């Protein structure tokens, strides 16, 4: 038994599983309560209290919602492609969760540190486009299809600017590993050096997660409910869950890249994850705030912004940062 425990391979797998269990459960709990927080914040911003009936101050609301969704009857429209219909909501959740395997939550708390952590995040967000496209197509419903197509066109347009805006951080760090990027921000977080890139990243993050003001494809007053019109029960629940998990994941990546991750004063190393969560919570709150503040973009305005404004700006940011880093190092 002890020999088994001393085996380095076994230790790798064991500790990875422990961290995965903690993160996965923590994340799912966080997402459900984030949904509640959004509803309460939305309520307060609109001058009403938000859900407060179920449990003390509404704290059992997520549990009630989950139980309700489990017991709903499911409608699979005739002639819908069954396999793809079931895969699409899974594709909404899985990439967002997998990205968390490389995000540094504390100085010693990363599930794993790979050399190309940032590229893993981009790869997972590329896969996330399929959830929307396939969800829309497999429902065999005109509105869902149009909503899915428009939503995926929106997502890929903004993915470009998002990838390019992270190049500035790369130039400053010289490594794609998220752990290295956080360590490089021990003194000053990168949004000080890369304010434009931070802004572009946050805007593209809003568009990638289909949040307001970029949520035209799934807006309530348009196209019924967009690409998830025909989804019900837990498949709809998974789409919903996937959207919010995506928000948390992108905010976590933004915290890592631009706000310094777990860096922060006054706390010992074992408690530094508190800083990470505070910064994450701040960014998520900004997402919610923006949703209830701005009116929705029209689709052509949305695409214009992505292609004609953010793309050249992020390219310019790359060139300027490159020149600046070169000049500073070779004076």
């Amino acid at each position: 038994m002890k020999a088994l425990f001393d085996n380095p391979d076994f230790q790798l797998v064991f500790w990875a599983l422990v961290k995965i269990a903690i993160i996965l459960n923590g994340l799912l709990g966080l997402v459900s309560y984030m949904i509640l927080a959004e509803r309460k914040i939305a309520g307060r911003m609109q001058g009403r209290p938000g859900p407060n009936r179920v449990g003390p101050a509404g704290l059992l609301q997520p549990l009630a919602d989950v139980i309700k969704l489990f017991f709903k009857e499911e409608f699979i429209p005739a002639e819908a492609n069954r396999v793809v219909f079931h895969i699409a909501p899974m594709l909404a959740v899985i990439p967002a969760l997998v990205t968390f395997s490389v995000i540094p939550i504390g100085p010693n708390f990363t599930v794993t540190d790979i050399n190309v952590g940032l590229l893993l995040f981009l790869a997972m967000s590329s896969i996330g486009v399929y959830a929307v496209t396939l969800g829309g197509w497999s429902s065999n419903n005109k509105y869902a299809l149009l909503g899915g197509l428009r939503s995926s066109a929106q997502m890929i347009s903004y993915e470009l600017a998002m990838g390019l805006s992270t190049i500035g951080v790369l130039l400053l760090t010289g490594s794609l590993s998220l752990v290295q990027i956080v360590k490089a921000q021990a003194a000053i977080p990168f949004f000080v050096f890369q304010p434009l890139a931070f802004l572009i990243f946050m805007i593209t993050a809003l568009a990638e997660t289909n949040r307001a003001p970029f949520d035209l494809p799934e807006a309530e007053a348009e196209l019924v409910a967009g690409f998830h019109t025909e989804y019900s029960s837990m498949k709809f629940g998974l789409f919903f869950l996937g959207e919010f998990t995506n928000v948390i994941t992108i905010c976590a990546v933004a915290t890592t890249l631009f706000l310094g991750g777990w860096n922060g004063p006054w706390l010992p190393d074992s408690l530094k994850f508190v800083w990470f969560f505070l910064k994450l919570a701040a960014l998520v709150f900004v997402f919610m705030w923006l949703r209830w503040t701005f009116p929705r973009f029209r689709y052509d305005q949305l695409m214009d912004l992505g292609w004609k404004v953010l793309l050249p700006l992020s390219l310019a940011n790359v060139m300027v940062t490159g020149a600046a880093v070169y000049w500073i190092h070779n004076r």
Partner: protein
Amino acid sequence: MREYIPVLLFLLAAISFAVITIGASHVIMPRKQNARKMAPYECGVEPVGSARNRFHVKFYLVAVLFILFDIEAVFIYPWAVAFRQLGLYGLIEMSLFILILLVGYVYLLKKRALDWEN
């Protein structure tokens, strides 16, 4: 490459979570199907026309341009990582690369290929 094993484990954990959730809801849910419920939803009216209509060519163009600019970004990544070693020549080379692609981008803007008026 041992550091990728936890990523694989996380992927398997996420997949099993998704499958178990959908599987459990399938087991638990009530089933009372009839033909009306299964028709595609169109605001309560009878569905008109097939769902598989044709779409505007702009979606195709957006996807193609996305590929091209994505490839450009993919070339910029190793340049950014090896930036310190590449020095001034690296900067000039990459500027040339981006400049040539900017020519294409300006062509795109002039031709108004991505104007979504409708």
